[in-house]
């Protein structure tokens, strides 16, 4: 049995506001899934390399050249709120 998941803390890290019903259900569901991982986490793999890209390739880097892409208006076209060509958000600090 894995240690109990601190659902409130994980939800805070994920910026997800949960209702108390959701907290209860998700805590139970996630604990069940994490228990299922026990066999994997107990495997002895100390010297194994990690695989991130499935074919082991390094990422392609773009040429350092400017090119035309979105216009300002296009970039803002889906913004919930925009003023004077800028995204608008509530205050970042309390």
């Amino acid at each position, binding site marked *: 049995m894995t240690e109990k998941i601190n659902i409130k803390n994980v939800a805070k890290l994920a910026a*997800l506001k949960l209702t108390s019903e959701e907290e209860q259900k998700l805590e139970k569901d996630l604990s069940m899934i994490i228990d299922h991982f026990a066999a994997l986490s107990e495997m002895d793999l100390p010297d194994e390399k990690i*695989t991130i890209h499935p074919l082991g390739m390094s990422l392609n880097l773009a040429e350092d050249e400017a090119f035309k892409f979105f216009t300002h208006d296009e970039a803002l076209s889906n913004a919930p*709120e925009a003023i004077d060509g800028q995204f608008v958000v509530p*205050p970042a600090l309390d």
Partner: protein
Amino acid sequence: MDHYKLPISDINKLFKDKKLKPSELYTEVFERTASTESIIHGHLSLFQEENIKKATDADERFLKGDELGVLDGIPVAIKDNINISGYATTCSSQMLSNYISPYDATVISKLKEEGVIFTGKTNLDEFAMGSSTENSAFGPTKNPWDPSRVPGGSSGGSAAVVSAGSAIASLGSDTGGSIRQPASFCGVVGFKPTYGTVSRYGLVAFASSLDQIGPITNNVSDAKILYNSIRGYDPFDATSLKDVNVKQPKLEKAKIGIIKELMEDGISEDAKSEVHKVSKLLESQGHEVIEVSLPLTKMSISIYYLIAPAECSANLSRFDGVRYGNRVNGNTSYEMMEATRAEGFGPEVKKRILLGTYALSAGYYDAFYGQALKARSMMKKEFTETFEQVDYLISPTTPSDPFKFGEKSDNQLEMYMSDLCTIPANLVGMPAISIPTGLSSSGLPLSVQIMSPSNTDNTLLDFAQNLESEVSFDALPQIQGDGE
């Protein structure tokens, strides 16, 4: 005569011989959509108005002999997590219910150049997370073979519309089987290409080291046409592959390995007997079939459900109510973000974001995410070594035939297990194709999956095409549509 189940190359010949016009085919397909859509709900949006002109433009091109290629005038449906400029891309999520894409995905640009007519956008599990389309915020898609059953997922809409004849072909995306599993459930062909051979630019990311766009079609020949039209290096995708020359598997007198671990507990007798039936056919064609053991495939669900949610939790952090998507107001930016995400995401997406956040958090990273990445390396080694002995691997595509709505939605692990056979191809990056081969004892479609080493996609497609012609699966779904 109905044309919607003909191979694309046959349709193209009819167009060229002036025996059929693209506008006539489009009308036929649209009428089919109109009569079946109320039952299956495969499309989230239809582009009918603008398509009439596109189809008549294609008529003109064929009349003048100026056609753009074999896909000119072919109606193709697009999964609604792939961006088409000027149209909604909802990912079947309330979060993006008002999002209009300002750009084309690379695969869309390529298909536009070939004169493809996009029928519309198809339903999926929210953000491609699921195996049944039950997680769509806009209601599930039904299986054309039996509307009381799921079409599979996440590309359930893309598979159902091809099966029902309301598109000639479709594009889906496959992160752990999301093309192949629904293709199997709907009795059509689904192909997941080698990771990186098809650009992911413009596909809304779920798990970037696993996601891959690919075709869902009525036959392998159509899959090959679509795959070769969308593949190719793209500088807009940092993981895009340049062409590489690798040793190709044999097409004749090949050696095929049945994966032992995918023929054991949890796999239905129907699914196993389909693999045995196909193995005998392969042997009768002069191939050799042996059993191979890849022990880590048993661990693939655990590896996948650590890596995919971890990547998902990072990718979906972009949905913060600032640049796009819906917003719920709050007194601070953080309050706005957490309220927006609470309202915009459905239960399965929330669960996976939380699971990924947990696996990446301090104190658990090494035990879970890091361990999964190491196990992924071991799994890759197992497959690489096995492909030194065999040309292809074979398994069931799905552990069972299509299940009923609600049957697995209360048992998350059982739902996750429905991707047991398809996940390994995503973890190791290799191509894999699902082809329908027969019907279960309930009269529902069953498929086998064939896999080959990375970058041998066209050889795999040729091999699958040979097998398909031997299998001669010609059953069609029972759906007839309204009033038929």
